[in-house]
């Protein structure tokens, strides 16, 4: 088919487009834009909600605290000690701003509910006491992890892992995974926005488009991976992270570990 007028604008382009009568309701893609935006906001995590200026705790100490807490909760079989650990966490939560506290409670309840569903078969296998006990332990672990997520940036997490001398491959994998998730999420969001801008009526086959979108996303991620590798290589990266000068641990860092250490001592003294 030849263009209508090779050197002039076609007639349809010079006349106003009549408005469409039957517009659709919110499309599948519009709804998903909202979810993706929320996810990206979580991934972006620009600053932690609590920023102590006078007493910043070293990133690796925060990580050690989390690990000790999780370990303690996992091995404790004493309800009183478990209660103590819950109190320690509750004390930390008091410092959260109200909005963040609401966010914490909401996501903690959802994740605890999911965990409870997973351990639910124990109700029939061993009875309600076991279910309650494991439910409490799981939700306490999730609460600690959630608190850590809220108060620590991804960068601090990586710094903590580097300071604790974790294998380079683990740090690199984590760093790239976080960067990638954010980057590809951003790309997908922009694509959905572009799609939204060109959606002027109901899309007949919205689910067919998903294939095209994710196909594009896959191709883009592959291209990004190659570019990223080339860029890292060009800047002299050989698979090993150069250790940045470490921040000297302060006595206050160790003091912040004291509640967990007290709990550990109580565990040793009282046992189970």
């Amino acid at each position, binding site marked *: *088919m*030849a*263009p*209508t007028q*090779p050197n*002039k*604008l*076609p007639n*349809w*382009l*010079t*006349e*106003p*487009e009549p*408005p*469409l009568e039957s*517009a*659709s*309701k*919110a*499309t599948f893609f*519009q709804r998903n834009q909202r979810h993706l935006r929320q996810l990206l*906001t979580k991934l*972006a995590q*620009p*600053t932690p909600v609590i920023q102590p200026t006078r007493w910043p705790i070293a990133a690796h100490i925060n990580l050690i605290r989390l690990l000790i807490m999780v370990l303690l909760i996992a091995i404790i079989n004493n309800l009183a000690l478990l209660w103590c650990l819950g109190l320690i966490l509750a004390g930390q939560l008091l410092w959260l701003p109200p909005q963040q506290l609401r966010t914490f409670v909401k996501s903690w309840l959802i994740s605890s509910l999911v965990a409870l569903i997973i351990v639910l078969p124990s109700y029939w296998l061993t009875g309600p006491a076991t279910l309650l006990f494991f439910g409490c332990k799981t939700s306490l672990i999730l609460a600690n992890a959630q608190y850590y997520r809220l108060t620590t940036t991804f960068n601090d997490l990586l710094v903590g892992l580097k300071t604790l001398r974790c294998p380079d491959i683990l740090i690199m994998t984590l760093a790239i995974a976080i960067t990638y998730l954010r980057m590809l999420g951003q*790309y997908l969001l*922009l*694509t959905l*926005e*572009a*799609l*939204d*801008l*060109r*959606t*002027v*009526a*109901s*899309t*007949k086959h919205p689910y067919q*488009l998903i294939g*095209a*979108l994710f196909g*594009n996303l896959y*191709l*883009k991620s592959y291209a990004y991976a190659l570019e990223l590798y080339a860029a890292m290589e060009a800047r002299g990266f050989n698979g090993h992270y150069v250790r940045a000068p470490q921040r000297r641990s302060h006595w206050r860092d160790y003091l912040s570990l004291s509640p967990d250490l007290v709990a550990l001592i109580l565990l040793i003294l009282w046992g189970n």
Partner: protein
Amino acid sequence: MLLKLANLCYDYPNTKGLVDLNLSINAGEFICLMGPNGSGKSTLLRILSGLATPNRGQYWFHDQLITAAYLADAQHRQRLHQQIGMVFQNTDVQLFNTSVAEEVAFGPRQLGLSAAAVEQRVTDCLALTACTTLRDRVPYQLSGGEKKRVALASVLALNPDVLLLDEPLNGLTIAAQQQMLTLLQRLRAAGKTIIMASHNFQQVQAVGQRFIIFNSAHQIAADVSADDLHRQPERQAQLMTL
């Protein structure tokens, strides 16, 4: 009055996007948004297209106040998108179909046109943007300049009243830039409103009718017509250094 912004402000989570914008745009104008990187040109285009809503202030389009609540209604949103088309700065994200022809046909197919009319639009748009030879190519494999042209063709196919273009000339050869500017001038002559963001004054000085210049404080520093600008060599010199 086609578009009107009154005391419009937009904030990003940790930074300002736009500060106290007041602006009126009539139908058929060719407007160039100029300013340094990060001054708010793209943010303004996102607000005008309905992709973002202002934190404070008002945005009117055809005497209709555009708010988040208004855009939450899919019918309103789609009506706005039918009237306002946008070419993104990163056109990579704009092309998601399996061939260039499919990409351009995506919009018109929703308009309830016959298959022949859709085909005619695709052929016309590809010819206007010099993309006829790319018709069966996969958009992903095109060069940056080709993607820009295909993105413009896919937006034109919807026949919007307003065209928002975010740095459309970046990555194009001089000949392709000239071709695109000529096309934009023709579209303006046909009554389309064109709002184009650019930081290259040399590229757009010949075509812009009105220049809205942003400063690094995310405000409008000047709003001058092309005639006035030609009488202000010092401002022209300033724009050349953006």
